[in-house]
């Protein structure tokens, strides 16, 4: 039996004045979870910093992320990742609108904006898949980094001693950290879909309480915020 059910049976479980911070336990729990998760990401980014600064040389992001899938040539530094970032930030905006409509009990509005948010998240994941595919195609892996001091090199050339490879940590950290973030986005999309289905089925309409939208919204904004740091560290500096 859940605490709520008992509450309803016996009366107000709180009865002790206003709740601290005036939030219910679910939302507060989400905040503490996000703080905890922030520490996980912070740890990973500290690892990134440590290994990057202990390397002799590090590839210039402008020379690595310089293509757009489907467009010929490699003279578009950071254009594609800017689009990805824009999509993710817009999906945060649509999430805000979903929460806003939830506060006003507007079921249709919630559904509309949740759908847009899910599309945004899925689009971001698609872009990330394209980018990963492209980098893997160029030769980046956990064991080899083709972005050397003298430009793009092949594994064969490095084996033959005619070219110098970049630090392998670049690829390892890139795949690990963007992958870890992508997993968060993926779980966010899945959670958003569950919430959307619940909304469509009128679960929150019945309870008259759309706080669940706000809770998943918090998670979604957090995932976006983390991306800002990943973007800064991998793509900008």
């Amino acid at each position, binding site marked *: 039996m859940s605490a709520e059910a*008992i509450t309803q049976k*016996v009366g107000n479980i709180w*009865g002790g004045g206003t709740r601290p*911070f005036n939030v219910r336990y679910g939302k*507060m729990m989400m905040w503490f979870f996000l703080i*905890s998760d922030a520490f996980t990401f912070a740890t990973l980014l500290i690892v990134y910093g440590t290994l990057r600064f202990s390397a002799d040389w590090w590839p210039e992001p402008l020379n690595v992320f310089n293509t757009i899938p489907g467009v010929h040539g490699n003279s578009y530094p950071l254009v594609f990742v800017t689009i990805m970032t824009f999509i993710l930030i817009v999906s945060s905006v649509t999430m805000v609108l979903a929460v806003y409509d939830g506060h006003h009990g507007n079921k249709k509005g919630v559904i509309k904006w949740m759908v847009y948010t899910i599309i945004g998240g899925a689009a971001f994941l698609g872009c990330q898949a394209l980018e990963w595919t492209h980098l893997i195609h160029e030769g980046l892996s956990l064991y080899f980094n083709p972005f050397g001091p003298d430009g793009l090199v092949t594994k064969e050339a490095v084996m033959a001693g005619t070219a110098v490879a970049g630090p392998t*940590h670049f690829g390892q950290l890139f795949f690990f950290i963007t992958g870890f973030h992508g997993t968060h986005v993926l779980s966010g999309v899945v959670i958003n879909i569950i919430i959307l289905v619940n909304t469509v089925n009128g679960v929150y309409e019945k309870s008259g309480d759309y706080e669940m939208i706000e809770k998943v919204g918090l998670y979604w904004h957090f995932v976006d915020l983390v991306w800002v740091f990943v973007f800064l560290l991998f793509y900008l500096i």
Partner: protein
Amino acid sequence: MADTHAHGHHHEESFISKYIFSQDHKMIAKQFLITGIIWGVIGGLMSVLFRLQLGWPLEKFPILETLLGHWAEGGQIVPEFYYALVTMHGTILVFFVLTAGLSGTFANLLIPYQIGARDMASPLLNMLSFWFFFLASAIMFYSLFLPHGPAAGGWTIYPPLSALPQAIPGSGDGMTFWLIAMALFIVSSLMGGLNYVVTILNMRTKGMSMTRMPLTIWAIFFTAIIGVLSFPALLAAALLLIFDRSFGTSFYLADIFIGGEALPQVGGSPILFQHLFWFLGHPEVYIVILPAMGIVSEVLSTNARKPIFGYMAMIYSILGITFLSFIVWAHHMFMSGLNPFIGSIFMVLTIIIAVPSAVKVFNWIATIWKGNIRFTPAMLFAIGFVSTFIAGGVTGIFLGNSTIDIQLHDTYFVVAHFHIVMALSAIFGMFAGVYHWYPKLFHGRMMNSHMGYLHFFATLLTAYGVFWPMHYIGMAGVPRRYYSFENFTTFNQFDGLNAFISACAIIGFAAQFIFIANFFLSIFWGRKSKTLNPWNSNTLEWTTPLEHFHGNWPGEIPEVHRWAYDYSKPGAENDYIPQTTPLTEEELKEPAHH
């Protein structure tokens, strides 16, 4: 409490929902406690086995071969198994007994009871927390029986022993299972911790302001916060380690040669892992000790029949310890090649922890000073806690000095220090809690006091018998983690001392069965307490009926009017005033802490 059963049983629960997948905090507390006790026996038995080797390194014990097979060929433990034992002893005791067993038991039992809530904020998450812990336990237990043995690179799982599956026998499957079990453990701890924090903040009964909460709850609150903030670092570190192990990355590996062949991994840093590990590892020791401190505060005050001395100072010192626990981790790494300047910063921060710790110790002593002390088994263990915390804390000042640590690091001095200050103290706190709250756990049954006294004195004497001599052999330079000292003639003079330590360890381990017998027999045959409140305590849990049912109080949750420590108040009728008693006219005029 005449209407105890009036609203009690709102519906019959099935066996499974009542005893197995229970969402009731009291049942979950019992599940954590009993799992913790089982782990305690396993972990303790391991220490007996490796103490046999250390105490009588040349002796053969044929029974060991019968029991352990090829791990004790010819009756002597083989080195690989010795290292596995030491590793698993640390892992089990630190995480499975003193983190899950201690926090899991008392946070679950006491938070809803003492703050006046029907259950945890999320009973479902609470249940999942136990079952993730159980799954972690099952996997860790299974790893003991792997063909090449469990993890054997030390409980700190430093790379490269943990990162290269081919390094030592325990680095293979044993290490993989260790990592899987710990990942589940972290999930369990996160779910529990979130629940504890949110329940304490949000579910308190009317009148239970933060500064009226018993110190147990304050301690558990900060313990949970430490867990929520520090375990993520281990999670991230373990994920990276899994990649190093399984996918050939080189986050922690550099310049390794095996059989003359260089491994492809370059540029990683094993020191990086140490930083990440100890960012969890140091706060972890406070996760272990803080709940014990909370329990001891409560038990000392109740059984000395005196208000806790310096209630606010206690809270601020827990807060101070919590904050400092996050910025001292590198004192475990003074000898890892740390920049001496960084070392001196960590040294200063480390030694500052002595201040809030000393505040607490003096407050405990002042609490029992001139008290009307009742020497219950719980009280003895609480006093024992203060003793061990002082004895172990003093050597922390030595080890916190980076210069002295050059001599003392990785010797038995360190083993003695952290076992006394953290392991013994925490286990004493846990025993105090079990003896004290046993009537609440098992429907008013009490544990046998005489067996309790015997258990206490046997434990106290043998524990000091084990760890006191270790200071001396540590100062003489005897290194920890060594399988045998037979090749070091200088250390032969300590053979007698080592045998003495081992004898004490074996007797101490045997003495724990007094407790275990007492614990399990009392469930069925323990003396029934005549009142709801056998210790005449002030806190809310003693106002609940003996029979457990989901929801704790049959009627309304009682309202709280005062703090938890109105013992022996001048002018009062009894020497205790429960928190539910309204303030009198005179008390309302006092400027005190209500």
